[in-house]
């Protein structure tokens, strides 16, 4: 009998949760469904709900001058550091825009919060759908190609503007005319790394890359493709996984093969381990990576990080006003922990929306797409133009380390010219 009661109670609780979930969403949808006329009041409601968190992200305008943006980022899971940066960056960008005298304002849906995808494709597509329920003009996200591709497919079907922030797989923007991105595509960064290596006169390259990741594979392929043209011989290619911690075997092979340059295009969490392992194995040549390196912890490994380089969208040392403003404000408000390439990309993405609205002359999706197509934008990531596919052609900042601190070395323009 007791068991029965329990099961009744539990089932009831479950139904209650289900209903609760249903209820709250139904409300949201009712508000969202009431077309654009009610958009203002919806905005007010969402703001009231997320008041504490959203702060002054509250869009003051209730007219068609407000770009309603949904943001997807990974707030939980193994890559939460990127979501943290993204969340801070979008809050900051929206506050700045709404406090300025910009013609168009920004409203971040979901009460000013990014919607979590947990770097999981299944959850990401639900996150996308949940944002769609709020009737957005555009969606920003996600950071990983594997998570973004399913969304891109759906977005092109829904004719929704999707601005991918970190999805570097070249297929992402090929899914449709409404898909754009503000990061490099994989082939581009790999090519830049190869031409930088040539510049430096390195000829024997070794590559260690994560076999189970788009970004890593893409950069490696591009590097290998461009190596020969730049007079570089790839003497060793070793796979690892994104979760690996031990690189001693690959590092000793790098040394045994006599490489003078090591390319490691992976994300920031394993970078200190690889650099440490390579130096321990006696490798004293240059180690280079992509924008995934930005934000890697160098403490305790200051010496090992000497002679390491990475390509990035910006350099925190850059004196350009957009960059200096971003870096100083961000550091002041949130510290340095989550200041990485991801934060910069999400920050730029919000500004790109406003810019697109200006160009297109409206805050609805169609105008935004019109405004974004082949637009030229200046932000933290420098000045770039979106090409026919919606990919940016950006200059690459090459950074190095000086006693553990990121130091700007040079900026390469898309054609490979130094500046």
């Amino acid at each position, binding site marked *: 009998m007791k068991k029965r009661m329990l099961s009744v109670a539990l089932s009831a609780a479950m139904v209650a949760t289900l209903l609760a979930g249903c209820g709250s969403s139904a409300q949201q949808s009712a508000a969202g469904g009431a077309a654009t006329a009610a958009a203002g009041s919806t905005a007010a409601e969402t703001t009231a709900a997320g008041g504490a968190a959203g702060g002054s992200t509250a869009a003051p305008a209730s007219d068609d001058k407000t770009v309603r943006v949904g943001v997807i980022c990974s707030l939980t899971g*193994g890559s939460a550091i990127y979501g943290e940066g993204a969340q801070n960056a979008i809050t900051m960008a929206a506050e700045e825009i709404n406090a300025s005298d910009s013609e168009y304002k920004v409203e971040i849906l979901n009460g000013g919060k990014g919607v979590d995808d947990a770097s999981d494709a299944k959850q990401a597509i639900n996150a996308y759908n949940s944002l769609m329920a709020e009737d957005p003009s555009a969606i920003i996200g996600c950071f990983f190609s594997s998570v973004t591709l399913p969304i891109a497919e759906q977005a092109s079907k829904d004719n929704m503007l999707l601005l991918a922030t970190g999805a570097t797989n070249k297929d992402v923007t090929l899914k449709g005319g409404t898909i754009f991105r503000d990061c490099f595509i994989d082939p581009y960064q790999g090519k830049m790394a190869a031409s930088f290596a040539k510049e430096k006169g390195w000829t024997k390259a070794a590559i260690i890359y994560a076999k189970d990741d788009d970004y890593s594979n893409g950069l490696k392929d591009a590097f290998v493709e461009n190596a020969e043209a730049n007079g570089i011989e790839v003497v060793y290619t070793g796979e690892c996984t994104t979760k690996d*911690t031990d690189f001693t*075997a690959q590092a000793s*092979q790098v040394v045994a093969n006599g490489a003078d340059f090591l390319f490691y295009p992976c994300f920031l969490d394993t970078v*200190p381990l690889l650099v440490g392992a390579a130096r321990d194995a006696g490798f004293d040549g240059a180690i280079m990576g992509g924008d995934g390196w930005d934000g890697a912890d160098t403490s305790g490994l200051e010496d090992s990080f000497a002679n390491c380089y990475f390509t990035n969208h910006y350099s925190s040392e850059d004196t350009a006003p957009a960059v200096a403003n971003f870096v100083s404000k961000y550091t002041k408000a949130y510290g340095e*922990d*989550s200041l990485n390439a991801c934060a910069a990309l999400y920050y730029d993405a919000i500004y790109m929306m406003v810019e697109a609205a200006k160009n297109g002359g409206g805050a609805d999706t169609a105008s935004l797409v019109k405004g974004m197509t082949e637009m030229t934008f200046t932000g933290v990531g420098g000045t770039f133009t979106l090409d026919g596919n919606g990919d940016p052609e950006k200059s690459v900042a090459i950074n190095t380390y000086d006693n553990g601190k990121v130091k700007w070395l040079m900026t390469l323009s898309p054609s490979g010219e130094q500046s």
Partner: protein
Amino acid sequence: MTFSLFIQSLINGLNQGAIYALIALGYTMVYGIIRMINFAHGDFIMIGSYTLFYTIPLMINVGMPAWLAVFISIVVCSAVGVLVEVIAYKPVRKAGAMSALITAMAMSLFLENLAMLLFGAKPHNVQKIFSLPSVNFLGVPLPLNVILTIVIGVVMMLGLQLFIKKTKMGKAMRAVPQDRDASILAGINVNRVITYTFAIGSALAAVAALMYCAKYPRVTNDMGSMMGIKAFIAAVLGGIGIIPGAMLGGVLVGLIEIFVKLFAPGWYEAITYATLIVILLVKPSGILGKNVGEKV
């Protein structure tokens, strides 16, 4: 392969293997006593590592050697281990192996997400723990760290073995899995035995965290999951529940991984797992495990 590369890899493999072995000891300890796969064990190591990350600077500030932080880590890990046991595992103990397994997985998820909220999502580097020199061994630099890790592993193994075989508590620990009801009749407080088991298992995790951080000086909130599976595989390979088996399995897995990585790094996980499968098929209870016939 040149001779020096071979020796170098042997050293690397032993080092990684010794760390796996230390982690596997904790698994095998808990499994041996309560027949439960404690999936949260890897996360105990994560907690131990975060404790080290925060306490090592304190230790250095007051002028003590960094490794002494391990004692704080042991206390923290034991407390967390016992807490997890009392709050989550104890209520489901009677419900059977599957419920226990799911609870352990849920706790693992819980600890990972809690760590993310408490310590932030950024991966941190742990300060250098040991500053031991390298000696020259057959023309290859051999870091004394490696020797230390292996020595600690062996000492732990022998200590545990002595504890289990000689002390009263150890004997009780061996009695409980054999026949729980009979051990209650013999006056053994089963709950206390299990709590002690978790305390010891988690303390082992703290020691493993020390050696792990000495070799891979980085902490993240999800560091426990993958490492936990590898170490668990090591424990099964050697014969789960058997303390020397954990040691053997750990070293074996470490060596296999490093040597496969030298030549086919893309396949190293597959080959490690394939080895496990082959060994279990030949010897279903692991290398050192005894085949116990089932009573009809």
